[in-house]
Every structure is written in C-alpha cells, then in structure tokens.
C-alpha cells in the first residue's frame, strides 16, 4: 500500500509538469507583444519596455520562463498581471464561492443520484426502473446552459410571482447557503444521471453476488441484507466517482456561475478572457487542473483503502 502511494505520487509529477507546461506554452507562444498592448496605439518608451521585459522574463527562452512560473506556483505565487496586480489577489474569496457551489452540487448529486439508482436497481425491469432510466437520458441531454435559464425562470421567478414563495435566489450570493441551491441543482444535473446509472449497475451486480444470496438464504431481513451487504459493497465505485467529480464540477462551474451571477473563479475566468488577462487565465486554468489531478489521485488512493480486495503489489 505504502509503496503504491509513493509510486502513484511519483507518476503524477510528469503529468502535472506536462499539463502546466502545455498550458503555459499555449499562452506564451502566441503572437503579440503584451507590453505594447499595455500602451495601446502609443509608442512604448524603450527603457520601460526593457524593464518590463526584464521583469517578466520575456527575453528568456520559453523553458526558462516556465521554470520561473512553476517555481512561483510552488511558493504560492501565481505571478502578476501585466497591469501589476498580483494574480493571487484576484483569486481571493472566489475559490471559496466556487468550492461552495461544487460542494452543494456534490451533495445534491449524491442524495438524488444514489437514491434514484437504489430505487431503479430494486425495481429492476419494472415501470419505475424504466422511468428512472428515461429520466437520466433526459437529464444527460439538457446542457447546463439550458437547465440554468429554465430553472431560473421556473423555480426562481415564476414560483415567486405565482405562489409568493421566495426560496430560490436567482443571482448572487447574498442569501447564504440558499443562493447555492439553484445553481447547485443545475451544476449537478448531468452528474446525477451518471451517478444514478452507476448506482443502478453497481447495486444490481452486488445483488447477484453469492454472499447476498447466502445472506438471504440464512434468513436475514431484506432491509439488513441491502444495507449491510449489498449497498456497502456497491458504494465503492460511487465514492470514487463522486471524488473525481468534485474536480470536474469545479471546472464545470464556468457556465453556471455566469448564468447565476456568482462571483466565483469560473466567472473570473470568463471576465479575464474578455479582458485578455492571460496571466489570470493561465493561473485559474492551472489551479483548476491541479485540483482535477489531485482529486483523481486521491480517488485512486481511496480505492485501495475502501476495497480491501484490491491489492497493489
């Protein structure tokens, strides 16, 4: 186990370096002079240009520039924009909002997904099962772009105007945890469908296992067989899926945050794209990719802990 963890960690390093280098190269290989862009159409003072180029290591080879950048990241410094604002100050508070949103989505996803999957597996082949499968098909087909606006209109506004229930705020984070409910549902949408299907297949598989048959044969109550034997064993792939999904949800929050006006990292990314603040864009994408990789790594390790049947050398 220990050796596996070490090996897995070592394996993650080239991926991390490769991915960050890829992103870095993409951004800095592009034509255009960022210093000139600062000045617009006016001529740039050559001394200022030289100082700026020196400051941002623009005259060094790409690999050296990347070296400086990665060195900064490991000491928590994401560089500064060409306008002189440290990228980490732009990040402040925004990661919290995106994390809150992703966590809300994860909780909704876990409750709804596992619940629906459980019901479908127990009612296998019956009308309920078919209905749930059809529902997941529908859920997968509705992009967040669509569900976001539709739920905003129906739950956020029409519910309020027709019944007076003002439970789902449609924008901003001023209403505390409730502000995350509607965007959370929207963000969780597709993942709910996948989790439902995963729960269904996983549980159906364990329900067929010999130990479940034995438990039923020895007269154990059905509820207890389900809880102690079947569910517990089919939870393993679900937990790992949920873990890996946290990273995906955080990077998928871009659209949801834009629709619901949440001032998180995703919206900042879109804003920075508009303003061509490349250093911010690279910073955000790098951090999100790091989270994505870390989540997958943790899940891989968790798999070995959760399922003692899996042995890694």
């Amino acid at each position: 186990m220990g050796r596996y963890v070490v090996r897995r960690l070592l394996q993650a390093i080239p991926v991390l370096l490769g991915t960050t280098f890829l992103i870095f190269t993409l951004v800095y290989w592009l034509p255009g002079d960022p210093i000139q862009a600062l000045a617009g159409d006016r001529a740039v003072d050559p001394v200022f240009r030289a100082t700026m180029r020196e400051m941002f290591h623009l005259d060094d080879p790409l690999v050296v520039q990347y070296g400086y950048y990665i060195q900064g990241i490991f000491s928590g410094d994401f560089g500064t924009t060409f306008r002189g604002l440290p990228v980490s100050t732009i990040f402040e508070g925004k990661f919290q909002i995106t994390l809150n949103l992703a966590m809300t989505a994860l909780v909704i996803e876990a409750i709804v997904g596992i619940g629906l999957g459980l019901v479908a597996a127990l009612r296998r082949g019956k009308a309920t099962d078919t209905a749930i499968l059809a529902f997941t098909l529908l859920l997968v087909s509705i992009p967040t772009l669509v569900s976001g606006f539709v739920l905003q209109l129906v739950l956020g506004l029409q519910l309020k105007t027709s019944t007076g229930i003002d439970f789902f705020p449609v924008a901003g984070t001023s209403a505390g945890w409730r502000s995350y409910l509607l965007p959370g549902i929207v963000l969780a949408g597709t993942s709910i469908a996948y989790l439902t299907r995963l729960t269904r297949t996983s549980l159906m598989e364990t329900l067929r296992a010999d130990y479940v048959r034995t438990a039923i044969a020895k007269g154990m109550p059905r509820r207890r067989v389900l809880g102690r034997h079947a569910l517990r064993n089919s939870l393993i792939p679900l937990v790992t899926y949920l873990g890996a999904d946290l990273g995906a949800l955080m990077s998928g929050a871009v659209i949801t945050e834009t629709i619901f006006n949440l001032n998180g990292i995703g919206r900042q990314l879109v804003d920075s794209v508009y303003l061509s603040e490349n250093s911010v864009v690279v910073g955000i994408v790098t951090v999100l990719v790091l989270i994505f990789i870390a989540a997958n790594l943790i899940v891989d390790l968790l798999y070995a802990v959760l399922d003692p049947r899996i042995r890694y050398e």
Partner: protein
Amino acid sequence: MSDTLTEQKPKSVKPPKQKKPASLWSDAWYDLRRSKVFIIAAVMIAVLVVMSIIPGLFSSVNAFDPSTCDLTKARQGVSGLHWFGTDNQGCDTYSRVIYGARISIMVGVFSTLVTTLIGGLLGLLAGFYGRWTDTILSRVAEIFFAIPSTLGALLILALVGRDNAGIWTVVLALSVLAWPMVLRIMRAAVMSAKSQDYVLAARALGAGPGRLMSRHILPNAVAPVIVVATMNMGVFIAAEAALSFLGVGIQSPDISWGLMIADARNRFLQAPEALLFPALFLSLTVLAFVMLGDAVRDALDPKLR
C-alpha cells in the same frame, strides 16, 4: 410417437441451417432495427441533418439575410407570422433556430471524426506495439487528458482570439483535448484483441503488422470506439453551444444556438421565447445523439447480450 418424432426432426434442424454465422455487426444491426430508441433517435437526427443541409426546406425566411429583420418588431411573442417570436433585432427566431442547426451538426460530426481518427489511430499503435510506443503515447495522452475539455477549449479559443474564432477553430479546440479518451478505449480494446488465438494464428501464418492490425485486430476492437464516438457527438454539440454562449466560439453573423441564447440572455424575462426555443432545439439535438449512443451501446456491448 414415431410420427411426432419424424415431424419434429426437420423443425429442430432447420434453424441452424438457415442461420448464417452472424457477426457482431449483423447481430447489432438486427438489434438496432428493433430498438424503439434507435428509430426515434435516427428519425430526429435525419431531420436535423436535412435541416442543416437545406434549411430552406423548413423556413421560407433566409436567416442570413439581415433585411428580413424588422427592428420595430423586436422581441415579439409567438404568432402566426413568427412561430417562435422575434429576437432583439426583430429577426424571426424560428428561421434562425432552423439555420442554427448547421453549425451544431457540423461541430458534432467533425469533432467526432477528428478525435476518433487521431485517438483511434494512436490507440491502435499504442495497443499493438506496446513497449515504448505505448509508454510515450499514453503519457502524452495523460497530459492532455488531465485538462478538463471545456475549460481547455475555452483557454485555446480565448488565446486564438475572437477575430479568428469560427467553426474550424471550435472543432480544433474541442478535438485537441478529447482525443486521449478515444486513445484509451482503443488501446484497451486492441490489447485484449491482440492476445486472442485468431490473431496469434494469423501471426504464426506470417501476417505482417499492417495486415494483423487492419484485418484481424481492428474489426474486433472498433466497437467500443464507435459507442464512445456516438455518445461524444452530443457532448461536442453541447460544448459548442457553451463556448459560443461564453463568447469565444462561433461569432455573429454566423448563427449558433449558443450564440442565440447569449443574445437573448439580457432580455430573458421580457422575451423568454428568444432564449427558450434555441435552448429546446439544443436539448433535442443532444438528446437525439445521447439516445443513439445508448441504442448503439446496447446493440454492440456483448456483455448485455
């Protein structure tokens, strides 16, 4: 007794005589033709494809012609003249939705083609040759795979710039990050096919690597790739709409459902039709491809047989 026996005999012999040795493909096609989901999906996709090739069949208004828009009639509701209402510029939403199908279908089809060809070819090579070919290709794929694709596509398109953005840059941006998934699936399928007896037999008979790959391994490893490719088509279409919505994908005057949603966004509450109809078509298109993928998977997955 003897009578019934002689009567029964030809009955029990007949079916195996008539049946040709069914391949995975003919079995799958047999299943597909009987699947309701497949038929519904195929009809929807056929309509969408016709819509994207000859939009004039569905709408008498040419949505690319700005003179058909009337600013004095902006943001009207559903009416006999404008089935889906009008947008901010007073353009007919129905005809724009019809003309918008082309971009979605094209992005879906071409992104799938590019990723399947690149990922499939590299996966075939990695799986077949193994050793350092596999190590290098898999490591490179891992690096690309670690970047979430919408995020990566957003980054690429943002850097390319709005002036250069168009359908081909969107296809490129989506494909660059999506091919590793195909590679992984193809590689796994090739690796399991490679050690099968019939492949070993062909090798023993002196078949070269090219022949082994094209005649023996590929036909038996391509099924899971086809399943993923069909499912990906819907994902790409949704991603294109998302990127266009964020302003980095398709640019006006081209018509894309994502772009229409972005345009209608600010007046959403006053004129929801302009947003809801492209959204509906987007969902229906994705649904059609998801259903197709589901049906194809059910037909091709031997485990479910």
